[in-house]
């Protein structure tokens, strides 16, 4: 990547924050998560089962009578 090209961070609004990678993510508890993907989707709603990586848990869930 050329030094003139800035990293792009996309705030989607209704979903994760997209960060051009690879990135290291330092968490408050001292753990460090490495993502090698070209773009990483960072969870900002805290609902992801794979936090800090988005797993689409932010999506609307429709209520039904049947429970799984």
């Amino acid at each position, binding site marked *: 990547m050329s030094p003139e090209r800035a990293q792009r961070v*996309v705030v989607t609004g209704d979903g*994760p924050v*997209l960060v051009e990678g690879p990135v290291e993510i330092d968490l408050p508890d001292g753990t460090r998560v490495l993502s090698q993907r070209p773009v990483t*989707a960072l969870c900002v709603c805290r609902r992801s089962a*794979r936090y800090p990586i*988005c797993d689409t848990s932010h999506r*609307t869930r429709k209520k*039904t009578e049947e*429970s799984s």
Partner: protein
Amino acid sequence: MTTTAPAPVRRARPALPRARGPLSAAVLDLLRGGAAPAVGATGADPFGEDLQLALYVCYELHYRGFAGVDDELEWSPELLAFRRSLESVFLAALRGAVPGGDDVAAEIASLVTEVPGERGVSHHLRRRGEPWQFREYIALRSAYHLKEADPQAWVIPRLDGHAKAALVSVEHDEYGAGRGELMHARLFGDMMLELGLSDEYGAYLDASPAQVLAEVNFMSLAGLHRSLRGALVGQFAVVELTSSPGSARLVAAAQRLGLGPATVGFYAEHVEADAVHEQVVRHGIIAPLVAEDPAMAADVVFGMQAATLLDDRLGEHVMAAWGEGRSALVRELPPAP
């Protein structure tokens, strides 16, 4: 983990499948050097075994071809004319079976809404699927996953600007971001080997029911026709928008069944990768495509609805077969080694 570079393997091209009726018999005959088909597709069941296999075989000439079949037959006028008649029947049936419209945002909203307690193959596998059912599911999915991202690659030269750049970024990820051993088709093959299945391209063609063939045929149809580029984008969106939650259920299923790292890894990769792809497809591909040419909206909606219909048909077929304790494949798999 220690890995060594794999030795290059010379793979045989897939064998021609067995005919399932007059249309597929006519195509196979032509590929073996016979005369132009004397039968017509008019009146054939558009979603039936015979028409779907005939179409699938026609399209395979654009991908990997078949053992003993002349590569030049890809552009045989007789074969293309016959394929055209098959496509017309299939496309007309799809257009007649979906509601249509041009509200892309509403289609996306329905695709990304998770309904708790929803029925479906991945829900079943997560809750109480049996090992033989998991293996069958993988064999069923192999028709697409062993050529994962290939049908969508046809659309690249038909797009421009932001939509093109964004679609290529997703395709790049599907193709392992430059690493052959990480191509999703390869990761799928590794899972097949781990489950005691063959990872050879086309190995389960004879075992694949019409519902599987129809799903892949729709991708090839929309990929190969520039006039259907919007539909291809809609189809691609369905895969990328619905994959993450389904993949998470399959991770849970694989863990519950005690399956190996390649199996868990394939679906875990798709949970994270497709969470990114969803955003890129919505904001990077569809939004600029429709902004530049609003007439694309109806085509995108058609592609989404048709892909959803075909996915639902496959799901219903699989759940109906398993519900009766039978195989969802045309031919049952040999038992796991």
